[in-house]
């Protein structure tokens, strides 16, 4: 018995409205997830590409200003076409786009890892310990529950996708010559934020749907790994097979020793392949096999939002020969199939996720 037993006291505080009730679920979910040391390490590691992005944009600003400090960075830019480094203001927009493109390419991997850590238990653990009556007997709607859980995923992905992208943009502006760069790159900022949100919402809804399918979060994690890895592997294998078939169709294996290393058109084999898949300097491959990979679909829409393919095309014009341009675009640009194919696939997955959630979490309207 406590020394001073106050017993039950009435509470006369004010309750907040319903609009932001989902935020309590998000806050709680983030707090619980952040207790994992592994998650914290992954978050730290995921910030390394962000530092690289900030450094790249800042260095490019110094290069545009012809700062003496830029000399330090030039030695690290040897891999670039000398024409780009020689005219940094002209190619500034393209370099920013490509820097963001690489940043998101790496962060997409970290995003998948973060979802693997945070996502599987979001709903499956609630199902396992029968927490739904506790949620829905309080002033919560199903949409609040879903939004709250989705908010957990968006918070973590936002920390490694959107926040670093915005901070890097601000740093890039601070190191730029003048504010005209805002006019040239503001679309990129919007595209980066939109791409970050696309990844967060799409992957978030998908993991919630998977999480609602079972009570064991380990199985959900396996499903996620399957969706991520297996779809990518299958897509890569099919794409490789397709390329091989194209290569053989265009250039069948010789039945006699070749007298020359050149094909019938007089082009070398890579050039021949390039011209098979590119027309008028623009790659035109409509290879649907890439659609089988979830992350490739995200990347394709991301390439559209960030304008990375356009940036590569601009830089490829520095190549003196058409085959050089083709090679550069084939090697670094792409994927080249229409972006809306991937958008349709992602929209389909989103619709499927909503259906699964709607069917799996039906409040308490069922007979015991």
């Amino acid at each position, binding site marked *: 018995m406590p020394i001073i037993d106050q017993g039950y006291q009435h509470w006369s505080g004010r309750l907040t409205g319903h609009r932001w009730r989902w935020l309590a679920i998000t806050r709680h979910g983030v707090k619980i997830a952040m207790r994992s040391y592994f998650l914290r390490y992954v978050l730290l590691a995921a910030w390394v590409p962000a530092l690289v992005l900030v450094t790249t944009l800042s260095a490019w600003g110094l290069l545009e200003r012809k700062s003496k400090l830029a000399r330090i960075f030039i030695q690290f830019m040897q891999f670039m076409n000398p024409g780009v480094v020689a005219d940094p203001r002209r190619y500034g927009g393209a370099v920013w786009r490509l820097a963001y493109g690489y940043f998101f390419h790496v962060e997409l991997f970290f995003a998948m890892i973060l979802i693997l850590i945070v996502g599987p238990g979001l709903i499956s653990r609630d199902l*396992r310990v029968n927490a739904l009556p506790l949620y829905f007997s309080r002033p919560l709607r199903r949409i609040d529950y879903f939004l709250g859980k989705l908010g957990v995923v968006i918070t973590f992905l936002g920390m490694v996708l959107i926040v670093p992208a915005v901070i890097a943009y601000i740093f890039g502006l601070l190191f730029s010559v003048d504010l005209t760069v805002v006019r040239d790159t503001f679309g990129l900022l919007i595209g980066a934020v939109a791409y970050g949100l696309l990844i967060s919402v799409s992957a978030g809804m998908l993991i919630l749907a998977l999480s609602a399918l079972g009570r064991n979060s380990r199985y959900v994690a396996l499903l996620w790994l399957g969706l991520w890895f297996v779809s990518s592997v299958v897509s890569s294998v099919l794409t490789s097979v397709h390329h091989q078939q194209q290569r053989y169709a265009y250039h069948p294996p010789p039945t006699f020793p070749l007298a020359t290393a050149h094909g019938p058109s007089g082009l070398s084999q890579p050039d021949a392949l390039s011209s098979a898949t590119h027309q008028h300097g623009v790659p035109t491959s409509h290879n649907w096999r890439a659609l089988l990979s979830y992350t490739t679909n995200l990347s394709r829409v991301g390439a559209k939002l960030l304008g990375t393919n356009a940036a590569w095309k601009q830089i490829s014009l520095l190549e003196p020969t058409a085959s050089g341009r083709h090679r550069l675009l084939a090697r670094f640009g792409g994927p080249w199939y229409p972006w809306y194919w991937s958008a349709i696939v992602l929209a389909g997955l989103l619709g499927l996720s909503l259906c699964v959630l709607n069917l799996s979490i039906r409040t308490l309207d069922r007979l015991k």
Partner: protein
Amino acid sequence: MSGNAASILFALEKVTKTYGAITALDELSVCVPPGAIGLLGPNGSGKTTMIRTLLGLIPANGGSARVLGMDVRRRQLDIRRLIGFVPEDECLFPGVVGVEFVAYAGELVGMPARDAMQRAHEVLDYVGLTEVRYRQVESYSSGMKQRLKLAAAIIHDPKLLILDEPTNGMDPAGRKDMLALAHDLAHHKNMSLLFSSHLLPDVEAVCDHIIVLGAGQLLVQGNIRELKAVHPGSFEVRLKADGTSFSRQLTDLGCAVQRRGDMLLIQIPPGSTPAMLWQTAAAHQQQIRHLRPQRSTLEEVFLNAVERTSCPL
């Protein structure tokens, strides 16, 4: 619906709820005053469905319901702000310690985070979980989990507390504590209570008023004290010796005599007084050891109600 809204805790008007071919609530109409209400009924009688209907968790197929003066269809979120609910099933928010569990429940109702945490400590003190508030809830015993759910249900100081089978699976000491808490909240803390249970002694220990459901319909409703009223002209008598001749004599005098164990239930004719029992006993040299007016037990009230409608138990 009749009656003053302030004097009605909740009211259902011809509420029907079906699950496919099964009718859980069959045009149920009931009007309940504030206080401690016991909800009784055999399995499948519609108790849980009625509770879920009151919370707005399931839509009724027909009829209307009002809780604390608010329409269940239109203001279910407002109603749930004023209700605390302790579900029957074992259910938890995973991965938290006790005090976080209760604070989170408060935040879900709309309490500011700081208030919720402060209040969580207070209600955990009240339900007797002070010492284990920093333990993972998954490690709690069944009794602790029930008290934890009770703390989570009362954190926002609700006007109506709904307890669905709160003593299920509890040991006698834990059950006694839970009943004491429910009684205290209902009778000293100005909180109305809807107490659903199969255990009649539990309901009798906590509640003043009962509702008995059977096959989704209202069988009996009323104040427990009134339902257990004295039967006029009916007495329980226990004799020292065998009362065969005593019974026969009373039957000859126009009494209805029924043997129940070692007790005789005697209904004397209208206009007679209990003195005839003493006189008959003296005439047959019988010694009366026990004589008192007959009262119904809650069990009898319940069983009679269920038998009247042929509800399977």
